[in-house]
């Protein structure tokens, strides 16, 4: 039985390999990951948050003269005593004391911002760049692309009417859907690997101009492997959702629209409901929140979530498992029972 599913999976690949859609999705995934990476690179190279953060200082001299000056974190780092861009001697001791206090406070803020800037710069260097790409770019955009793939593989069979032609050959329905789910999972893994390899290459290139790259030790590789496993696990409930929607609607277009629409709308609704206390209690059971918690998106930029406390690993994993089993089970049950008509063109 498993051998039959594997054989069908091979033939699913035979078809998929010759379609344009997976290659287009791969190019989009690479383009998005590269866009995010090189945008961050440009941001870091331009001085990062330290240059972006500034504060305006104002003081009134004893003669009634008003003076203002603007400092950035980059500038305050270079300042030594007496290097201020204005002559403070003209001001009263109280004014000078106030400005000194403000400057000290700003310097403390800047130390934190510069630390953040260092962290971003570090995240661009291998191997951190790969983890960041997994936890932010792929955990968000990757999920959307995987849903498109997952909805398209069974959905187009309805649209072209080929499901009928396949089933007439005596292929079992659940074996067929299992092979489609399996090829989706394998292609998703492949797509993620290719995106990460390209990010890795970009990261090596970037490290030539950014200081602080590290040699990858065993610990880093195992962290990367764990992150990759977590990423693939995040895909599962969304694959199940997309497959269910395409089977339910007998259409790849509808399957993609409903599942991707749900994914995006869920983020918006969570953002709105986060302001209500009662939502805190049930937010763990929301798929997007569980996925965000599982991928620790709060630690990485560009990811979804970031509103309120995210679920811990175990509850997040259980919630995603429940979604995968329920949505996937429904998809199989429906696929097994549903009458198959001719081409629908969608």
């Amino acid at each position, binding site marked *: 039985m498993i051998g*039959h599913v594997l054989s069908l999976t091979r033939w699913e690949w035979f078809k998929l390999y010759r379609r344009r859609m997976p290659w287009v999705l791969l190019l989009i995934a690479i383009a998005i990951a590269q866009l995010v990476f090189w945008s961050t690179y440009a941001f870091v190279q331009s001085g990062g948050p330290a240059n972006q953060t500034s504060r305006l200082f104002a003081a009134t001299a004893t003669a009634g003269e008003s003076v203002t000056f603007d400092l950035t974190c980059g500038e305050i780092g270079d300042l030594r005593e007496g290097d201020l861009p204005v002559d403070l001697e003209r001001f009263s001791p109280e004014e000078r004391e106030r400005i000194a206090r403000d400057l000290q406070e700003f310097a403390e803020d800047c130390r934190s911002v510069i630390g953040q800037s260092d962290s971003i710069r570090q995240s661009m260097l291998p191997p951190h760049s790969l983890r960041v790409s997994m936890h932010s770019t792929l955990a968000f955009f990757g999920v959307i692309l995987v849903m498109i793939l997952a909805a398209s593989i069974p959905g187009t069979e309805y649209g*072209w009417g080929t499901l009928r*032609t*396949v089933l*007439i050959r005596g292929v*079992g329905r659940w074996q067929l859907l299992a092979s489609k789910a399996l090829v989706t999972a394998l292609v998703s893994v492949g797509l993620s690997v290719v995106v990460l390899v390209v990010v890795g290459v970009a990261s090596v290139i970037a490290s030539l101009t950014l200081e602080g790259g590290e040699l990858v030790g065993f610990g880093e590789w195992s962290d990367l492997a764990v992150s990759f496993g977590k990423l693939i696990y995040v895909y599962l409930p969304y694959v199940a959702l997309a497959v269910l929607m395409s089977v339910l609607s007998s259409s790849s277009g509808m399957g993609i629209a409903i599942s991707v629409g749900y994914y995006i709308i869920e983020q918006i609704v969570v953002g709105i409901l986060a302001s209500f206390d009662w939502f805190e209690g049930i937010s763990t059971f929301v798929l997007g929140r569980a996925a965000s918690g599982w991928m620790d998106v709060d630690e990485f930029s560009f990811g979804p979530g970031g509103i309120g406390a995210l679920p811990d690993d175990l509850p997040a994993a259980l919630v995603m498992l429940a979604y995968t089993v329920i949505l996937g089970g429904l998809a199989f049950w429906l696929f097994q029972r549903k009458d*198959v008509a001719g081409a629908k063109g969608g």
Partner: protein
Amino acid sequence: MNDFVIQTNALTKRYGHILAVDQLSLEVPRGRIFGLLGPNGSGKTTTIGMLLGLVRPTSGSFSLLGSGTSHAEALHRVGAIVEQPYFYPYLSGRRNLAYFQGISGRGSPKELDDLLEQVGLADRAGDRFQTYSLGMKQRLGLAYTLLGDPELLILDEPTNGMDPAGMAEVRDLIRSLGSSDRTVLLSSHLLNEVEQICDSVAILSKGKVIAQGAVGDLLHPQEQVRLRTSEDAKAVEVLAALDWVEDVRIEGEALIVTAPHDRTSELSEALGRAGVYISEITPLQVSLEQYFLEVTGDVAGEIQ
């Protein structure tokens, strides 16, 4: 070995309040070309869909290629095409066949070459399916049904969209396929197609079998003769008196006499004795179309 490759027992399919197939009981004998004839919406495709596992019956049962095998196993010995051939538009004809051969787990590249040659698609086998004309798609569909040398072929409107030459060619092919031990179930709304190809036929109307039997038997339920005489009224009187004449009626300028064809000379003799002269005598054969019109009544207009 069971004599019937398909047996249905009170097979029923209901879509909401629409009864698509109503208590259908059908027996398709082995080794025959069996026609399923009916107007659009008579339940032919739904019946075939149920036999092929595409549509779940609401009630009733059926067996395919005997009751000893599972439905999935039986389907491995069936080649079928429903309504029209649906293939992957971006794959070539050959790759489409290779895929369907592959998922069945049987066959060889040589089989593909032979089938493509047999249906006349060898030259275009490398072209994408989406570039094929409807006739070429039908041919590829036929090649698909023949993958794995099936015992039973189920063909739903196989000449749909073909030009007359293509139709004749495909009909010849179907006849040749049915000349071996293979059974062919041909569903069509084309009377002449069924009449030309099939040995037996079941006529469906509104989801029910309304007639079933050998095409020859359905074509000759009554033997009739058309006569042109010098005195129709007197001829009716004379012929009505003969006990082996079932019916005599005047239709336009002729008489239609229902009587065995082998007693035509006795008709002539009886009229001659009464002084009625015959200018024309023509044995009539009831066509399937006429028969169909009789048994289906108001829905017959949809049949061509």
